[in-house]
């Protein structure tokens, strides 16, 4: 790489980074200043935390945070267990109809979940689960994407390791737990991040299937600020946005290095 190439790559990266961070900077600016300074950028603008207080008071956010946290954790655990078992079977066992079944799993990647909302709702109602956190999580537990990703990772595990463990006397589940899962750690981390951020931000399905404060996630709380009939208060809505996406942003910054490495290894971009 010549010096010019490097310079070009660096300035390109800086430009993209700036473009990415501008909306975030604007959100922070409006959130910590009074509403009059939404479009006036002067250095001596007074700082305030009123917007956060207003946003926090507009909906029962403490409860919503708890719900969201329970929800993403439950989904993640469910997905890990189910996808690991399914992926192991698809990667290492030969059974009748394996390819057809795997094609069906892949088909799930092509179907927009929104199309299935009415069918999912009917099913949840038959199970008597409307207005529960389980109802929000259930349609996402059997994730086609997770099965596919883990199967591909498991297939790269050398058969010799599997055989060696078997000779040592390990049973099927022990091999999965001692050999495959540790080797697929970067994939789990990368998939976990995608899953958590997706379900943290999911809005429509939770809104439809839940009715009460005890089950609703933060995104539903956030939607009370979309007041199209009366003009939008940018400062409060931005404070609320920062507040609800804050935990994710902080977690990402803390584990940034691991995430980036996992993505490189897991091959998700």
């Amino acid at each position, binding site marked *: 790489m010549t010096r010019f190439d490097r310079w070009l790559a660096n300035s390109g990266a800086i430009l993209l980074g700036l473009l990415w961070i501008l909306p975030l900077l604007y959100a922070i600016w409006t959130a910590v200043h009074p*509403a009059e300074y*939404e*479009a006036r950028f002067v250095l001596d603008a007074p700082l305030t935390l009123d917007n956060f207080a207003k946003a926090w008071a*507009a909906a029962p956010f403490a409860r919503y945070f708890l719900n969201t946290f329970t929800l993403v954790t439950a989904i993640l655990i469910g997905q890990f267990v189910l996808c690991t078992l399914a992926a192991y079977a698809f990667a290492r066992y030969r059974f009748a109809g394996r390819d057809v079944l795997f094609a069906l799993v892949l088909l799930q990647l092509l179907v927009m979940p929104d199309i299935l*909302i*009415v069918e999912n*709702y*009917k099913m*949840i*109602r038959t199970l008597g689960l*409307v207005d529960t956190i389980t109802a929000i999580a259930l349609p996402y537990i059997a994730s086609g994407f997770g099965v596919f990703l883990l199967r591909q990772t498991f297939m790269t595990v050398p058969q010799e390791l599997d055989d060696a463990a078997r000779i040592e006397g390990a049973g099927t589940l022990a091999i999965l737990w001692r050999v495959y899962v540790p080797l697929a750690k970067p994939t789990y981390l990368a998939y976990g991040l995608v899953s958590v951020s997706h379900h943290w931000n999911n809005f*429509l399905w939770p*809104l*439809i299937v839940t*009715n*009460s404060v005890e089950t609703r996630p933060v995104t*539903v709380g956030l*939607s*009370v*600020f*979309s*007041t*199209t*009939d*009366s*003009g*939008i*208060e*940018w400062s409060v809505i931005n404070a609320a946005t920062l507040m609800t996406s804050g935990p994710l942003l902080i977690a990402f910054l803390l584990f940034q290095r691991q995430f980036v490495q996992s993505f490189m290894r897991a091959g998700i971009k």
Partner: protein
Amino acid sequence: MLAKLIKGAAASATLALASALPAQAVDLQFYFPVAVGGGAAETIEALTNEYTADHPGVNIDAVYAGSYQDTITKVITAARGGNAPQLSVALAVDMFTLIDEDLILPFDDFIKTDEDRAWLNSFYPAFMENSQTGGKTYGIPFQRSTPVLYWNKAAFAEAGLDPETPPATWEEMVEMGKKLTKKDANGNVTQWGVRIPSSGFPYWLFQGLTTENDVILANADGNKTNFDDPKVVEALEYMVSLSKDHGVMEPGIVEWGATPKAFFEGQAAMMWTTTGNLTNVRKNAPFDFGVGMLPANKRRGAPTGGGNFYLFKGTSDEQLSQAVDFIKWITAPEQSAKWTMATGYVAPRPATWETETMKQYAKDFPPALIARDQLEFAVAELSTYQNQRITQIFNDALAAAITGQKDAATALAEAQAKADAILADYR
């Protein structure tokens, strides 16, 4: 003796229980959207609690359902999934969609006494236009609005105009707009004369112009549009000319959400927007402002907007009668006055404006009366079968003309042809 005493005590206890509890409890579920700030959801919950406190044996589960769009998605999904709420507030223009989906019931089935009939006739006719079709009433007006003109009195005075008089006609709006448009030394506009937002749902404010030009966009059966009427074309040409020929309005698509802000910051001296903004403007405008009716051309006019109560199929008659009773209660003058003052929506019954609370409110804040007085000239908001698709077609045509991709006549003729193709099935 003892046995007799116990028996007597038991009997009186049963009696007491029976009088305390009505035959059986009625559970109602009620979905509502929120489209204004200032704690609208809390007001609805407070009102529902007040009702259930007065009516033991009735439980109302008031469920916040997001924006209008989210609410209609939620209610349709729940109804198809066999779990419809008894009542919901949704956009008045969704009436034909809900009829088409076979999800709602007309209120007429629950109107039995003369008193009920009087109640049904006690709403402003302009609001009922979007609530009735085929001789039946499917919606009861609740959170309704209409667009008005807000003007900056300080800017008017500075431009040498009478700060107390808004433009009364289209020509006056252009003339005043020219005086109000200010440029800096480089020729950049620092203050536009007028701002008519055109993002998202441009058809709504544009309907102000078409009504003033004495033309109705869709028939009452919701199966025929008049997009290519020469008067509609003329209205669109006027709207385009505001920026293109007269230079009094910012060119291109003008953002709806940023409009109040632009008005507060002096970037526009007049704005057209909903009465729902009244409280917002009152709180945040750093100058004296006025509220007026939209300027007239062939006549005065404006569309109505906002949400109605609907009754959903799929539950017992007892629940539905109770739901109707609740709607009657919440649209009664006292409750309606509370709702109007909390949100800025236009109270939908003349009787509400006669209450002491509303008289006091109007006295403190006379602009609140403008929207009510404009109702006399207001018409139904554009609403048809397949409403989402039809308004999308119309919005696209308006956007094409505003951005200069097509001329008004071509864009509207194309829109009419597309709408005809869709609506032919419903005739």
